[in-house]
């Protein structure tokens, strides 16, 4: 069976690197892998998504609504926006950070404080402050790899040499912090 990991967030949050690390790990583990992203307009602070699919043989690079095995959201409202992409019995990992969309910034809409409640009422969710966790490790930008660690744990992708993959694919100065972030992400899911 093909498995689906959906990563969502706001342009600039590092979803692209997160998806890249995941796909490289999965490929090394021998899976067929496909990944899809939309570039362009959406990068200017818009909503972004990366679809990662793996299995014996993968056809569509796009995840179908109702079939994500894990939803990894880098921002709380984005998790809600994509909730219908989840298989109803699957798990969401949600970074509790909120980033105001322009309608909120200019006072034309409200950023509701009920979003996390709504998510937790509708699906099984692990909510974590990935930004603060990454900052505690030394660099807030490592939040993306922390979330990859959480996703890998949920998908039971334990036999993959994630540390090796990070070592090969992030800048040397950031290898250690990202390895720590990955491990911390795994811990946070078990906790």
């Amino acid at each position: 069976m093909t498995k689906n990991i959906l990563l969502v967030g706001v342009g600039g949050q590092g979803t692209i690197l997160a998806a890249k690390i995941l796909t490289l790990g999965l490929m090394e583990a021998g899976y067929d892998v496909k990944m899809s992203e939309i570039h362009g307009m959406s990068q200017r602070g818009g909503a972004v998504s990366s679809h990662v699919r793996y299995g014996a043989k993968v056809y569509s690079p796009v995840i179908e609504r109702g079939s994500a095995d894990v939803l990894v959201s880098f921002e709380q409202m984005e998790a809600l926006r994509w909730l219908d992409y989840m298989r109803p019995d699957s798990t969401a990992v949600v970074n509790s950070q909120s980033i105001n969309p322009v309608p909120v910034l200019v006072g034309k809409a409200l950023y509701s404080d009920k979003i996390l409640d709504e998510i937790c009422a509708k699906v099984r969710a692990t909510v974590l402050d990935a930004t603060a966790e990454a900052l505690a490790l030394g660099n807030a930008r490592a939040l993306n790899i922390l979330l990859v660690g959480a996703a890998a744990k949920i998908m039971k992708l334990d036999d993959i040499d994630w540390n090796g993959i990070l070592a090969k694919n992030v800048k040397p100065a950031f290898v250690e912090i990202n390895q720590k972030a990955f491990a911390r992400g795994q811990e946070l899911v078990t906790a």
Partner: protein
Amino acid sequence: MKILMTGDEAIARGAFEAGVAFASAYPGTPSTEILENVANYKEIVSEWAPNEKVALEAAAGASIGGARALACMKHVGVNVAADPLFTFSYTGVRGGMVLVSADEPGMHSSQNEQDNRWYAISAKLPMFEPSDSQECIDMLQEAFDMSETYDTPVLFRITTRIAHSKSIVETSERKDVPIKDYVKEVHKYVAVPALAAKRRIVVEKRMNDLKEYSEKSAFNRIEKGAGRIGVIVSGMCYNYAKEVFGDDATYLKLGFTNPLPGNMLAEFYKLVDTVYIIEENDPYIQQWVERLGYKCIGKPVIPPFGEMTPDVLRMAIHGKGLDVVDYDASLVVPRPPVLCAGCPHRGFFYELSKKKDTIIAGDIGCYTLGFAEPFNGMDYVVCMGAAFSSGHGTQKALTAAGKSTRVVGVMGDSTFFHMGINGLIEVLYNNSKTICCILDNRTTGMTGHQEHPGTGLDINRNPVHEISIEETARALGAKNVAVIDPNNIKEVRAALNEAYAKDEPSVIITRWPCVLKHMNDNDYEEFGQDLFRKKYTVDESLCITCKACIRVGCPAISIHPERNKSTIDPAQCVGCSVCAQVCPKNAIVRAEENR
């Protein structure tokens, strides 16, 4: 070696392996990354052209010169390049020549959703449609061989999901394809009526010969399933159909789609009872199948517009999708794209949008976002390079109607070199008074920061001749040319006022770099060593919460929910100071000064 590649990367790899020696393109989502990746191969001369017509002509010329050549563009770019394309189809090639057209079903970053497969028919070109990255590489090898064997340019049609999805590919070595010796062949390459009329007959024969190829091509095949349901697909839709119809259905998978294989279709129909045709955009294959007298289910059961995804397909075929979580969607606020914090377009639009009795003719680039809240600063946008020319037409119409309304055309620097320069010539030649504004942010912003003729760098960031927009405008004879700093709103206002006061055309060039662009030494020299390193902050004791700063629409500024004062996110602010200039109480100050 096995690696993960997007379709764009795979096409670049395919071009390398096929021995391509020259490649030219103009950026455009989702095709941009093809040439960006081709440029990584030293063996290939890679160039950004000022527009798609020039890119195709350069590639055609390289082919006539004996080299294998590649041109890449987004779907609407092929419209720009259509003139040379249709006649190059008659002359044929010497070195193989392939044109990649990247179509955009779903219009993620485009102004229309045209289906460029029709170009293959009307320009009489063979066409490939890969369904994943491996096929991008494999079909490109075949496309170049075919181009030389059948003496024809080849259309290579991809869509957004092919371009931007990764799948695993197996790469090979580069083929050694020497550049052929030049031979003068006037009968073939000089398209005067008497000669072109003879080529016209050759083209007809070529397309006829290709019918035979299509029947035998390894890229057209029947995949037999156990059931009696048949599915006809090309490109990415093959994958979506596999998800929804599974392995039980029998597939006619078409990778070579002009001309289409009629005998294979007849074989396929013997194997199945019910046939679905799954294609994005237009009923291109469907019309062919129906013309041959077969029954099929296609459009409008399959939606004729929008992107085809597995969800859309499942809905269309089964009437319902998978089970989904139901949630309160009213809590979700749209997240439209915005001008970045520090975007130099902001200060310009802040002033322009205050102008009364004005029509703003827009164009395509990041600055198109000036149409939206909070500026609402654009009346129309059609295609790249249309701001000055369409603005000119509107100005003439309004003037003829006795109206005093002024028309302001707005375009970016890359857009100016693309086609906009022709609009400026139109304005100057036809005695217009259209105000022509060029927002020079020193890069092609929207598509991800490509160099262009005005940046002084080539695709590999080597220094090259830099064409000055200001000198170009003056050389064309523009009398009123101002170069201003868009972050200085008084300067913007003064330039606009001066232009409005004149009954003749003015050219206003704003000059400040895009905050996301790759800065170079020249940028720091011209715009200051502290470029984008300043920060502003709100002195809350002075802030009266009038929200004037909010109306500059900067994602770094908001009203603090608890303190009810304006607040600036220091992580986002890069110190453009536009908000500080609009604050009536001078409550927004340099961060250091507030300490």
